[in-house]
């Protein structure tokens, strides 16, 4: 029997392959005590044995067999029954092991890790990974419709390896509705999970009970708030072009009769040289290539200020249209502010994973909302930051928001924008 030590960090699904195989074969495989990931496997002593410094790694009791790569270790500690009786069976086992590594593992990681906070969430990548994994699982489901186990009529190393590779997906992302479309895979997974040798390594595999949700805080914590290199993609221009036109129409609607009693709260502030109406006209009629330079040319930093606003509770945002209503609702409630203010507020991301932020410009150097009691309904839901008009960062922000491009801090892509004018 292959007695030895397995170096791994706890709850490593790759290490489970060898540990479960050892339970079946009776091989005496012990997990190295006092293993510290990032220290033990970077020590000179460890690297001498395993130059890659990767875990799991296996060292036989006599020190003669040194192995890295989980499938090889699992093979080594397996019994003949697990490996397969003849070359054809062994090859089939190998086929599934390779398939798990090439077809399942990359997609599973790309789908699961963002939800665990190990990887940055990118809607597009997650969707792609989801499609890839589900396509692979469909193949597996077809195979298991007519077979009880992967190879032959008994549990082999193929079952163990594929099972271990799928643990994360079943625990975190394959919610009941998805599992219902993968009946045979789920049947097989549950049977594997219930086997005594598997249970002695993994006593309780709790299957995912609800669709996963992304928690940006988790990633921020784990990644130590690493600064993202937001990949700026300029698209959705077409959609953008259409909307200002609509907004323009609204502007051209018959003027409401003025209420003389109500004075404009902005009247108390000096007018300055920046003509808000002229800029809005330019922004509506011209491309951003013209209107943004126009803005900087005419902007009067003495009497006007630029602000960055970020919605404080992005985790509460669900459907895209609801978030858009949130923005336009705020605009409506701030109607009287329109004359001396301009804003571009954008929604980034999609359903259940989005954020709202915007760039505002108004007369005066202070938060304008305090000027009128009518304007104070929404602004406290946003974090406000005054921007220095001379700073290059500000130029970039204005560029991004006025032209509806770029991404938010989490790298979500621009989805929709609303203009307050």
């Amino acid at each position, binding site marked *: 029997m292959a007695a030895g030590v397995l170096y791994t960090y706890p709850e490593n699904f790759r290490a489970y392959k060898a540990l479960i195989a050892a339970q079946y074969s009776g091989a005496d495989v012990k997990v190295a005590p006092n293993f510290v990931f990032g220290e033990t496997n970077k020590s000179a002593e460890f690297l001498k044995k395993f130059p890659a410094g990767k875990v799991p790694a296996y060292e036989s009791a006599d020190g003669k067999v040194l192995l890295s790569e989980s499938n090889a270790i699992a093979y080594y500690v397996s019994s003949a029954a697990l490996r397969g009786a003849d070359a054809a069976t062994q090859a089939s086992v190998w086929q599934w092991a390779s398939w798990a590594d090439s077809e399942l593992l990359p997609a599973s990681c790309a789908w699961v890790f963002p939800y665990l906070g190990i990887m940055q969430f990118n809607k597009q990548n997650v969707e792609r990974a989801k499609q890839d994994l589900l396509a692979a699982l469909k193949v597996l489901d077809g195979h298991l*419709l007519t077979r009880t186990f992967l190879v032959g009529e*008994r549990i082999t190393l193929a079952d163990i390896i594929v099972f271990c590779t799928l643990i994360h997906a079943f625990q975190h992302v394959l919610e009941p509705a998805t599992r219902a479309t993968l009946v045979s895979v789920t049947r097989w997974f549950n049977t594997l999970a*219930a086997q005594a040798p598997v249970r002695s390594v993994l006593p309780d595999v709790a299957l995912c009970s609800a669709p996963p949700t992304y928690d940006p805080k988790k990633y921020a914590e784990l990644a130590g708030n690493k600064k993202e290199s937001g990949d700026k993609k300029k698209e959705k221009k077409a959609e953008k072009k259409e909307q200002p036109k609509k907004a323009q129409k609204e502007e051209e609607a018959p003027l409401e009769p003025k209420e003389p009693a109500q004075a404009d709260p902005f009247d108390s502030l000096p007018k300055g040289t920046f003509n808000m109406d002229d800029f809005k006209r330019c922004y509506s009629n011209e491309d951003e290539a013209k209107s943004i330079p126009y803005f900087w040319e005419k902007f009067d930093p003495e009497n006007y200020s630029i602000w960055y606003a970020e919605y404080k509770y992005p985790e509460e945002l669900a459907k895209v249209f609801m978030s858009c209503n949130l923005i336009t609702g705020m605009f409506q409630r701030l109607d009287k502010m329109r004359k001396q203010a301009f804003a571009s507020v954008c929604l980034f991301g999609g359903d259940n994973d989005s954020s709202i932020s915007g760039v505002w410009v108004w007369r005066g150097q202070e938060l304008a909302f305090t000027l009128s009691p009518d304007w104070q309904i929404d602004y406290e839901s946003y974090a406000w930051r005054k921007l220095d008009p001379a700073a290059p960062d500000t130029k970039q922000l204005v560029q991004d928001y006025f032209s509806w491009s770029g991404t938010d801090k989490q790298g979500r892509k621009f989805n929709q924008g609303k203009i307050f004018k």
Partner: protein
Amino acid sequence: MSACNVQVIKQIGKYYNVPVGTVCYNTDKVLTTVLNKQSIEGFATIVLKLASSGGVKLSQEQMLLSYQWLEHLAMYVNQASANPAFALGFLKDINKALEKNTYLTGQSLSVADIAAYYVLYPIVKRLSVTELESVMHLSRWTRHIQAQPRVCTSQPPLTLNTLNLSILAPAVH
């Protein structure tokens, strides 16, 4: 002629390598045998007794689940062997149970699977290819059970051609 019959009991006895005693029908037409000078009545009770004397240890839950399946078989299998239309419905119910479970009683091979295999053998055997196609999970299970050691000692395994057919020639032409 009953399907949960003397022959099935003998096959199960052979599988567990235990004596089955003299199996016969008593005056109430109930299957009966005598083991260790003790009279045991009823198909389900006899099968469970054979399993336990064969060294099978069952938890309370497993025992009850097995008993439930054995009773279910004993109750309906006669009608199923007499009436092919009824048989198909009967098999489809079992098929449904085997969709989400690998074995009849859940996640491991039990005495219910062994007994059900022997009881259903003649019924599954006479199914047509298309009928087998409609009970895919049952076919999967049948193939698995008959591949287990000691199951196919007294009769050849069922061919279940449809499984191969569906793989070699899927229904897309």
